[in-house]
């Protein structure tokens, strides 16, 4: 155990975690030169294409230092705020963390939030000043920031580069020298923490664990304390580039277990593995369930594909336990699912995976947060779909989730950012100058306001010099109303939204204008209305189409004309009908483009 080191790599998004991990894998010869690529550990197609890490990746390395052989278990984590729960799980399996800071960008919002996650678990922090090769690197300035943030000695900060390999040797030495070996009792009853699980279509669910006490052997009878289920440890092993089976794994080390688990539900990350015969007395306190932050409907474009969609979602859930969904139906869209996501990026990724990995074409409705409606003389109702909001006269009040948002930016953008956050119903809670030119702003604001059109605005008003992080705080009473959209008097349920009363008019007007752009003319006039209850607050009209026939001279070119109409037919097949009005898919996401 003395020779094991467990650590994770944490940072703000894009600061170079996965690239630095490549260098560590290379230096320790864990990966052959042939198998090494950029961000080797990002093995999902989507990760590779988007150049971001979505899931934590654990891997074991061997390292010689001063004549000793060490086992280093590395976990590379994602930087994006939607996936911060991945970071907290990884941290729970480690004694130390490499905190990577981009030397050109300095401390950013997720640098701080991820650092605090690590400090909460008493991890030893090794600060790494990365991307030193960049011409825009500002080592001295960023070192000041780091020193101030983690209260370390300046010379503890290791200058490095994932590009050139600078500092990689020093990092490996620091891992051995500064991070403590895991503490635990190899002779006590087995106690292992499940910190991750993955799905493999051939082998079922594979759980990743760290042994706290005792030892697990292949063939042991084990029990998952939380679920109470018992299994035979068919195969255990360590996580190298490939999974390598082992006879046993003992205290302090990290490994995987395959035990014929088919259902993702059976493996709860945070659960404790122990022996059936000689169980541990105290189970590990598990993780809190990840709570979805935004909800949206996902519907098959072709209504006949509903069952296929259900299967696809279920398979996707095996890979991604943070996805939640339940069936729902919409007058406009037919049968589909109300899905909960960790954030907007997560939603985008799920949609993309459904389309790419499962060949589904889906309509995603406008996302919303989860509301708490308090019905008069009755209990609270959770509203994940605006159409579920009870009638106004039955409602006592409605609460919505608030977040604490941290924004780090340069001082010249403070004014503009405050303006934006206030417009988004934010309240400034704190303002700290990290250095003379860098400011941390803390706002409390409704989560709903961040869902639309916040990141893009933040980015543009700060010219990209603002980073954003948030965590949910509590539900608060807000003056919310349900805004409905009607087409020729028929309500389009999938377009209803819950919105703050002061913003309802502006929003109603804008969405009517946008829908007018997106809904094609038809043979009759179409009235687009936005209403609250029975009160209409905005209206636009799409004039009737007077003619739909090309009278162009096309000579004998019949083929071209036929193909054109066939294309139109295909487009129409993807439309949805409300009353007699045909609505293209794009209209269901209209709100997201409301300010374009």
């Amino acid at each position, binding site marked *: 155990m003395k020779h094991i080191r467990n650590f994770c790599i944490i940072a703000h998004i894009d600061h170079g975690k996965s690239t630095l991990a490549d260098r560590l894998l290379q230096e320790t010869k864990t990966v052959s030169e042939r198998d090494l690529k950029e961000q080797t550990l990002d093995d999902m197609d989507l990760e590779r294409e988007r150049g971001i890490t979505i899931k934590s990746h654990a891997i074991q390395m061997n390292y010689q230092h001063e004549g000793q052989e060490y086992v280093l278990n590395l976990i590379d984590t994602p930087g994006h705020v939607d996936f911060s729960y991945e970071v907290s799980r990884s941290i729970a399996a480690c004694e130390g963390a490499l905190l990577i800071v981009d030397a050109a960008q300095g401390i950013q919002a997720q640098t701080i939030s991820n650092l605090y996650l690590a400090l909460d678990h008493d991890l030893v922090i090794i600060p790494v000043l990365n991307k030193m090769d960049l011409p825009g690197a500002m080592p001295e300035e960023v070192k000041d920031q780091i020193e101030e943030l983690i209260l370390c000695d300046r010379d503890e900060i290791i200058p490095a580069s994932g590009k050139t390999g600078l500092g990689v040797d020093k990092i490996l030495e620091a891992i051995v020298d500064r991070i403590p070996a895991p503490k635990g009792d190899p002779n006590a009853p087995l106690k292992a923490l499940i910190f991750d699980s993955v799905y493999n279509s051939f082998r079922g669910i594979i759980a990743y664990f760290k042994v706290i006490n005792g030892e697990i052997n292949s063939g042991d009878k084990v029990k998952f304390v939380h679920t109470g289920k018992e299994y035979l440890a068919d195969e255990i092993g360590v996580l190298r580039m490939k999974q390598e089976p082992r006879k046993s794994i003992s205290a302090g080390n990290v490994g995987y277990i395959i035990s014929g688990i088919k259902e993702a539900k059976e493996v709860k990350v945070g659960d404790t593995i122990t022996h059936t015969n000689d169980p541990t007395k105290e189970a590990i306190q598990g993780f809190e369930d990840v709570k979805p932050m935004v909800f949206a409907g996902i519907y098959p474009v072709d209504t006949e594909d509903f069952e296929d969609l259900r299967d696809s979602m279920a398979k996707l859930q095996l890979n991604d336990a943070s996805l939640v969904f339940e069936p729902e139906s919409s007058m406009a869209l037919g049968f589909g699912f109300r899905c909960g996501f960790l954030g907007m990026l997560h939603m985008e990724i799920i949609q993309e995976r459904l389309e790419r990995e499962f060949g589904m074409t889906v309509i995603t409705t406008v996302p919303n947060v989860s509301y708490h409606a308090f019905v008069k003389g009755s209990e609270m109702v959770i509203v994940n779909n605006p159409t579920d909001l009870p009638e106004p006269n039955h409602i006592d009040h409605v609460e919505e989730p608030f977040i604490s948002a941290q924004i780090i930016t340069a001082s010249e953008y403070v004014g503009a950012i405050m303006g934006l956050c206030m417009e988004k119903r934010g309240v400034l809670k704190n303002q700290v100058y990290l250095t003379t030119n860098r400011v941390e702003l803390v706002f409390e604001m409704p989560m709903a306001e961040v869902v639309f059109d916040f990141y893009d605005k933040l980015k543009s008003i700060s010219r990209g010099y603002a980073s954003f992080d948030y965590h949910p705080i509590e539900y608060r009473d807000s003056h919310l109303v349900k805004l409905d959209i009607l087409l020729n008097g028929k309500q389009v349920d999938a377009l209803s939204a819950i919105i703050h009363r002061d913003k309802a008019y502006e929003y109603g007007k804008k969405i009517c204008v946008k829908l007018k752009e997106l809904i094609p*003319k038809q*043979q009759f006039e179409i009235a687009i209305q936005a209403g609250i209850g029975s009160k209409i607050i905005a209206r636009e009209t799409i004039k009737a*189409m*007077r*003619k*739909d*026939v*090309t*009278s*162009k*001279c096309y*000579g*004998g*070119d*019949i*083929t071209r*004309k*036929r193909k054109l*109409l*066939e294309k*139109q*037919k*295909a487009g*129409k*097949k993807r439309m949805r009908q409300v009353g007699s009005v045909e609505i293209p898919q794009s209209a269901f996401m209209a709100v997201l483009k409301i300010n374009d």
Partner: protein
Amino acid sequence: MAGIYLHIPFCKQACTYCDFHFSTNLSTQEEVLALMREELRFRENELAGEKVNTIYFGGGTPSIVGADDIARLIQTIADQYDLSDKLEVTLEANPDDIEIVKLGSWKTAGINRLSIGVQSLNDDVLRWMNRSHNSKQAKEAVHLALEQGFETSTIDLIYGMPEMSEQEWIDTLKYVSDCGINHVSAYNLTVENGTVLSHQIKKGARIPPDDHTGSLHYGILVDRLESNGWDHYEVSNFAKPGFRSTHNSNYWSRIPYVGVGPGAHSFADNIRRWNVSSNQHYLKKFSDGSYFESEQLTRTDRINEIIMLGLRTAIGIDTYSLEAEGFSIFREHEDYLKSFIENGMLEWDETYLRTTRKGMYFADRIASDLFLVS
């Protein structure tokens, strides 16, 4: 029955809206025309057993090549193909090419119908379209052609330009109706990719034609001509009684035609084919037979063609020809057809399913609704 189309791919100057195939490089004229005669001879068996009842010189601008060239092409056809006694021979002519001597030689060559590219009687419009004539020339040309015995001729018009007022359009149609011509084709101005016009619009130098103006002008067109006794026999075509064009009608009735010359389309034996739209490639690739592409129609293609073309015409869809494909349009689209017949868009007389006057405005939409998807 069958048709022959000859594409004369040369123009004096390029009209801004035009995306037909043509070249303003006239130096290859002789070679191209010679090869077209060759192509006519080469493809004679495609119409074996069919009587040719229409020959059509389109373009491009057939009126800029010599009348003797036209005569030679017609002679080649007469030598190789079986011609019907009632033969329509049309030549597209621009007003500035129409003069008395030429008219005489065309007649001698066998031309009995002109398609006169009037396009507009608004001189500003003609100017920005970069047409090579003005409105005065246009009217004189029509007059002359009629006078010289080309009374089955037709004129081409374009509408939908935002700068043409309603009154101007009404006046144009009044002229057309009264001038003695017996056939008109009128087309909505469309902006095709790659044309000078589309470039001008992108740069903001021209107002794009809009839906509203297009449908307004179309409405006026139909109203005016119909009330003056014209027969609106296809979306864009109008004839005085007895003057329908054989050539155009053949397209809609899916009668075979051989198209020769660069960019020409053909239809025979269930195959649609189109020659390369490049004079150079036509010249170069003719000898190895790679100068055209083709498409063999599937059952779905045939059904969709019948629907699409039928709905554009006053005759309508011949439902028997659909039955012959094993397709019962009434079984397939019962509710749809019922409601469209009820609301006066379609009518059915036991054989033909056709758009009504009101329904013809929506012929494309109805066609795509009725399409079969493979």
